[in-house]
């Protein structure tokens, strides 16, 4: 119980309070503490990468052992992980080397770019089926989004200029800029304030041991 609950809570409290105090104390000791703790976070982060790999391997090993539906994907994961690791170590992690560079530029790069590109197709389909002017707020959002999307296109700037709206009113980029710098900015700032207050509240709850979810499911 001491190692599972009391010690982590104590460590969390001490270092949480220390970091808050440190931010307001501009002495050398305070700076040294910050540097020391930053080093520790970097070291722990490195171990977290290793822990992630172990966890991934255990998960997929279990799927392969039980021949769960889709176990073939787990084989692909293992081959990809071990293959990249072995070649990466052999090439010293140098992306300019032929083998490791090939994995990066001809496997990882197109795979990630393809996954992200697929979004365009889903967005288009969703735009047709879900982006409806069902209420006043939805209509407002729809109009603002359409103006910003179209207003960023050079062809629309040409049409706007051609219609004489730049001379009669304002350039299209200024109109779109107004939406971004006034209503958007106000909403973003409100969201940021809300989020930040939430982060402060949650941090205090963690530091003082009220929020204990990070200790594991039994807590």
């Amino acid at each position, binding site marked *: 119980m001491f190692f599972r609950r009391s010690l982590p809570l104590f460590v969390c409290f001490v270092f949480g309070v220390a970091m808050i105090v440190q931010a307001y104390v501009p002495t050398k000791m305070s*700076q040294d503490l*910050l*540097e020391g*703790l*930053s*080093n520790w*976070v*970097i070291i722990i*982060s*490195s171990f*977290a*990468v290793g822990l992630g790999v172990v966890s991934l391997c255990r998960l997929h090993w279990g799927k392969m052992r039980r021949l769960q539906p889709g176990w073939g994907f787990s084989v692909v994961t293992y081959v990809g992980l071990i293959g990249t690791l072995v070649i990466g170590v052999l090439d*010293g992690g*140098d*992306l*300019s080397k032929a083998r490791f*560079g090939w994995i*990066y*530029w001809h496997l*990882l*790069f*197109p*795979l*990630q*770019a393809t*996954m*992200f*590109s697929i979004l*365009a*197709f889903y*967005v*288009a*389909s969703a*735009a*047709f*089926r879900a*982006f*409806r*002017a069902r209420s006043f707020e939805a209509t407002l959002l*729809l109009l603002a989004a*359409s103006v910003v*999307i*179209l207003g*960023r*296109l*050079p*062809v629309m*700037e*040409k049409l706007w200029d051609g219609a004489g709206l730049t001379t009669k009113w304002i*350039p299209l*980029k200024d109109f779109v*800029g107004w939406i*971004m*710098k006034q209503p*958007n*900015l106000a909403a*973003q*700032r409100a969201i*940021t304030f809300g989020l930040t207050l939430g982060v402060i509240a949650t941090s205090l709850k963690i530091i003082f041991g009220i929020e204990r979810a990070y200790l594991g499911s039994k807590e």
Partner: protein
Amino acid sequence: MLEFLVKLDRRLIYLAIGIAALVPLLFPFGLPVQPTPEVQGVYDKMDSLPPRSVLLLTMDFDPASAPELTPMAKAALRQAMRKNLRVIGLTLWQTGLGIMDGAFREIAEETKREEGKDWVVLPYVPGQAALVLKLGQDFKGAYPQDIRDKSTADMEVLKGVESLKNIDFQVEIAAGVPGIGSWLVYGSQKCNYPMAAGATSVGTPEWYPYLQSKQIVGLMGGMRGAAEYEQIIDTPLKSRLAQKGLDALTVTSCLIILLVVVGNITYFMSKKSGK
């Protein structure tokens, strides 16, 4: 007709989007863009730096966002190397290292800049925000070697760079977290140096409050922002990656707006007819 639209096969939409993206890439029409003050701000700040000033170019994105963000990184790099600035490249994203190294090598070759003297690419180090904090204290301690395992201790490009306090300007291009927020809070604001940002189109609106408060001096948004930057620095036409992408973006955006309009007409007609 209404029946057809209500039951429109989504594969037809996918096909239309595919064609709308592909055709402009094959037959670009390259309309010029009008630079916005946000992008002009990035250019003006970098233009005001004297030669051999230290620019920190951070590219916090992976291959998924590379088509959108690499053009603006290359444009910023091109301006910096043309101006003979000392450029330090680093990333908080492990899978972004290859993109960054490729961009640095390409632009350095084009502008005849020497690695180690004029530019350096630093390896991936885990830690995210903690790494930024560490850089604010001891830059070379966090990066004792560059990406090619050469010692950074006596590297000319890093001469006088003991911490982030010695950075003259940072351009941070990011697709998510860790990214602009991490550098803004733990880097630029803490160590008091100017910073500009570049983000994906969907991520850009988040950073306007920081532009207004002048915590960032400029902001490049997505493909459009990159195309503006390419135009401002007079990038050779064949190297204008964002301009080419913007053509495809123009046609697909128009198609999406058309789909929204048709979708809404279908919705109201269905509602009226009680279907």
